[in-house]
């Protein structure tokens, strides 16, 4: 008995030794230096773009009223940033984008879940989903108005039709590549159909789903920019409207200014998605901290 304990004890020691040996690793660089490492190249890039732009303007190839220079544009943008209207427009657009996108995610999730798990639905509607993705927003306008009249809902309808296919496709791709081994493991552990979905399939498809979300956001945003012209609601300025009006009025600084706002929003959203993605992959050990 004593002898056995000794053997076992030494076995445990050896196991612990092996474990300790396997688990070493060095830490990454600190947060501050990581953020700075991301920010400075961006700033440099922006600087370079500005310089190039100014040079084109200075070349005199086009008059200022055709292609506004950075100085005029930023004066215009700055003036706008000082008005309450700008922030209302921004708020309106972001509200629509976020709610529309949220609905699109919900619908994409349901459709994607159904299509990915039911083989007949898949064969019937799988390609239709991508087909819908290629449908330009303006084609939906008449139907949006038929169904919802001149209301916010009509805008949301267009946004959802733009974004939901991407979301669904992302989920479908994720489900497709759920490792069969995990499904078998789930089954052995006694998970039912719904539990399997909740505990195995959904989490396993998260990375691909996230990529679908990102694409969906881009589609949602573009659809929104178009849709905001369809229904102009009293006392609600919006970015889409501003973009359109700037073009309508041949207002070059206004147009470029609005484009800059759109770009900045796009970049910020991308950074959000990216950090979600990075966090996810790190947590799952898909991306080793290098």
């Amino acid at each position: 008995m004593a002898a056995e304990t000794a053997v076992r004890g030494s076995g445990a020691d050896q196991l612990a030794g092996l474990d300790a040996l396997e688990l070493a690793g060095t830490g990454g660089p600190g947060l501050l230096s990581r953020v700075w490492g991301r920010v400075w190249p961006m700033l440099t890039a922006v600087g370079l773009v500005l310089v190039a732009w100014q040079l084109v303007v200075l070349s005199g190839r086009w008059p200022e009223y055709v292609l506004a220079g950075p100085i005029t544009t930023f004066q215009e943008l700055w003036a706008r940033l000082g008005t309450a209207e700008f922030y209302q427009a921004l708020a309106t657009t972001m509200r629509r984008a976020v709610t529309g996108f949220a609905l699109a995610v919900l619908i994409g999730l349901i459709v994607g879940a159904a299509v990915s798990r039911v083989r007949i639905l898949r064969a019937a509607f799988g390609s239709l989903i991508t087909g819908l993705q290629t449908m330009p927003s303006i084609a939906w306008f008449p139907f949006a108005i038929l169904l919802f009249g001149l209301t916010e809902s009509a805008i949301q309808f267009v946004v959802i039709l733009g974004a939901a296919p991407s979301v669904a496709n992302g989920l479908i791709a994720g489900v497709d590549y759920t490792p069969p081994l995990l499904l078998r493991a789930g089954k052995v552990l006694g998970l039912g159909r719904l539990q399997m979905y909740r505990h195995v399939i959904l989490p396993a498809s998260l990375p691909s789903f996230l990529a679908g979300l990102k694409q969906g956001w881009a589609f949602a945003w573009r659809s929104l920019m178009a849709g905001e012209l369809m229904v102009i609601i009293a006392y609600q300025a919006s970015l889409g409207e501003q973009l359109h009006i700037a073009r309508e009025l041949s207002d070059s600084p206004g147009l470029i200014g609005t484009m800059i706002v759109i770009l900045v929003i796009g970049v910020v959203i991308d950074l959000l998605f990216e950090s979600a993605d990075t966090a996810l992959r790190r947590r799952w050990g898909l991306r080793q901290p290098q």
Partner: protein
Amino acid sequence: GGGGGGTSAEGGAKEVRLGYFPNITHATALVGVEKGLFAKHLGNGVSLKTSTFNAGPAAIEAVFSGAIDATYIGPNPAINAWAKSKGKAIKIVAGAASGGVYLVTKPEIASVQDLKGKKIATPQLGNTQDVALRYWLKQNGLHTDTKGGGDVHIVPQENSQTLQTFATGDIDGAWVPEPFASRLVVESKGRVLVDERDLWPGRQFVITHLIVRQEWASRNPGLLRKLIEGHVEATRYLNDDPKAAAGTVNAAIQKLTQKPLKPEVLDSAFKNITFTDDPIASSLTASAQHAVEVGLLEPVNLDGIYDLKILNEVLAAQGRQSIKDR
């Protein structure tokens, strides 16, 4: 870049690049191109290159970038282009069409006062029709604001959408140009409440005119003259033989869009538009004035936007009356 492709230094251009819309208010251009009237006046050595647009901004972008030399266009984009370029980019060199704008409402609306609390569509915030509606409502004691509030709710939307929303009852009326006004009447049983001509002195106001790129015009006065000669002949054709002209216009529209107008829409629209070489300068300045008054435009100096010298020379050569530029 496409800038200035058709011009060389000493006015030795080989082509004229003209823009217009496949639209009944642009009938002058449609007829001029279809009947070869421009080509006839430009002569053998010069070719006519046409571009069609479906809205003003693209046409102005094309003028600004030098991709076209002249275009038929409505009053608003012209004022914008003038204001944005501080009078450097364009000139209005001739009128093309007048009239053909109506307030069409649901049949149960019988008077201005019935409009209270109703939704009325216009093609675009701050365009001529939008300004005209607001100014008219204001004169009738109805308050509006640019955000869609007030006694009458003004909803700017594309004309095509207006057709639909009127049919589904989402709006109660619309202040729109032809052929949309006629379609509202013919297809959706709308009723004409106001003929915009009645609001203007001499029942005349500009709906389409011809603008040119200043840089091109100054380098190619000879080509400009020929272009205007063609334009004048096209206008005369439209007035001399409206029936045949209507057919030509519809044929041209069909060629460009694969969809002709329905005969009843065509007839009604054609009757409601006057084709004239007169750009009706007074209506443009008055309209700009109204826009300032309803708070849609910063005061803009339109002095010099017209250059009717060549037009008047052409008219004079035919023994016709000259046209005033204010």
